[in-house]
């Protein structure tokens, strides 16, 4: 496997606080990585460092580039969608397409037009006339028409309704993603994308709290619904979290084999959201 992103001792300090504190992680090619953390944990700072938008301390390699030094060269291989508000409101759809075609050597206009033909977005419209969902469709069409190796999504579906959100990720999987590409995504609606993620990066107050693959999560963690009479016995296995659920208690175990866990009750797959709450402890 080739690493698309490698961070070593990555730090970013502002006057008031440390946003990233000696962080180490890597992202492999062909993966869809969820970068998940509470507000203010350093997600956006990490993405900005990767995109070359902010200077940082430590080592950071993105597709062989030092992102801050080579931002404009890096952007030939990296695409980026932040929440829907960042497309300039005055621009026309046709102008946006012409602009990207003019500055981006890997943009394929016909692809973009094909994606847009399936939407309500028309070339003569201005961004300010589009709904949030349509702006997201336009941005996605622009980005998917770029033959990029790394796509970074920062809350790309914020403020969209469920129909647009689902279509957004479906399109991304069907029309863009393959084993040569890599996607790094942050979102608060983690339940909606957990089935497409291959890797998880939990970030907590500027440090990596968990870095793992979804296969590992399925093997390592399990959630058991324990009735009250077995609760004490189950607790002796040292669950990493517990919560009340329908008169029973849901215990989350790390590294307890399934056959052992089954003795205490019904065993379930662990959802990313539950795992997130457990790992983050009281902070979430």
């Amino acid at each position, binding site marked *: 496997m080739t690493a698309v992103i490698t961070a070593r001792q990555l730090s970013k300090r502002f006057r008031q606080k440390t946003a990233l504190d000696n962080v180490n992680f890597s992202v492999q090619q062909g993966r869809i990585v969820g970068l998940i953390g509470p507000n203010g944990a350093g997600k956006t700072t990490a993405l900005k460092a990767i995109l070359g938008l902010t200077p940082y301390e430590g080592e950071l390699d993105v597709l062989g580039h030092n992102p801050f030094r080579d*931002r404009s060269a890096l*952007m030939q291989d990296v695409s*980026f*969608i932040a929440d829907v508000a960042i497309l300039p409101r005055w621009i*026309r759809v046709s102008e946006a397409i012409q602009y990207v075609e003019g500055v981006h050597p890997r943009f394929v206009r016909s692809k973009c037009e094909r994606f847009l033909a399936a939407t309500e977005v028309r070339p003569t419209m201005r961004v300010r006339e589009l709904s949030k969902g349509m702006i997201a469709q336009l941005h996605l069409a622009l980005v998917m028409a770029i033959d990029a190796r790394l796509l970074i999504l920062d809350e790309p579906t914020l403020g969209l309704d469920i129909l647009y959100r689902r279509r957004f990720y479906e399109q991304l999987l069907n029309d863009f993603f393959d084993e040569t590409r890599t996607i790094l995504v942050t979102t608060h609606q983690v339940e909606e994308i957990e089935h497409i993620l291959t890797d998880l990066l939990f970030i907590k107050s500027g440090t990596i709290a968990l870095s793992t693959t979804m296969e590992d999560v399925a093997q390592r963690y399990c959630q058991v619904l324990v009735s009250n009479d077995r609760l004490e016995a189950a607790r002796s296995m040292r669950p990493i979290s517990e919560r009340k659920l329908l008169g029973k208690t849901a215990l989350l175990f790390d590294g307890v084999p399934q056959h052992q866990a089954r003795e205490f009750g019904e065993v379930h797959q662990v959802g990313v959201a539950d795992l997130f709450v457990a790992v983050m402890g009281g902070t979430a």
Partner: protein
Amino acid sequence: MNARFLTLLQREIWEHRGGLIYTPFIVGAVMFGLFLLTGISTFYWTDKFDGSTHMAEGALKFAETQLDPAQMRLIIEAFLWGTALVWQMVMFIVVFFYCLGSLYDDRRDRSILFWKSMPVSDMETVLSKLVIAVVIAPIVMLAGLIVGQIVLIVSSGALVAMHGGNPWKLLWSHSNPLLMWAQFGAVQAVQALYLLPLFGWLMLASAFARGRPFLWATLPPILLSIAESWLRFTTDFTFSKVIWEFIARRFAAGFAPISINADFGETNINAGLSGTKYAANFDDVLARVMSIDLWVGVGIGILFLAGAIYLRRYRDDATS
């Protein structure tokens, strides 16, 4: 200039189509409107109400028979240059505010994150905006000026003809607008260099400001004067005076790069006959090219632009 850079220029024109492209033509339309109003009021309403039916025709006759061709040329050139300065003033204000918003507006609406997601360097971005301010805007202004003045020249000739005057003899034979337009273009080239520190400063303030770029652009020279008065316990602003004069010369040139002998009194017309070749005084402009002031300004302007590029790269306050 490659296709990428042309795309960046195109982007600026899309965003500022109204200010950069339409304004020079709107100025022409407004002046044509004013021309019609004055034309109608002098030739039509005076005829109708004063009973002095032949006043206008009399004036034309007088001009045709009594005025010297050199005097006529002076008047017409003063008219061409005088109207040109209207274009100049309006576009100076447009470009002033264009520069002030150039590196600020997209940070305010966060679209900078979209522009920075494209393989375009910060230097290319800043230079594309500078080229708009000092090359594209003046070229479009010149185009608007030429169209507007052609309309004014033709329609004033038509008005003269309607009242029995000979437009060729009275107006058209005396001046060469082609030469005047070429001269105006040359003036714009000098302007580009002379105003570089001003536009560079505005772009620096635009890249620096987290809010209110206008204040960031205007306050520092004012604060400098206040600081000097405190530090030196004096009202003799020696240091800030140099800076203020430097700024004042830029504004004067920005609004009116060339002085005009607009006085048609006896003496000046005589001067026109004996010495002054043109209504417009080119000596100012030529002196500017040869002056240390201009070249020091170019150096300062380049420093400001380098600062703007640096800030464009290092400022990351678009998102919180």
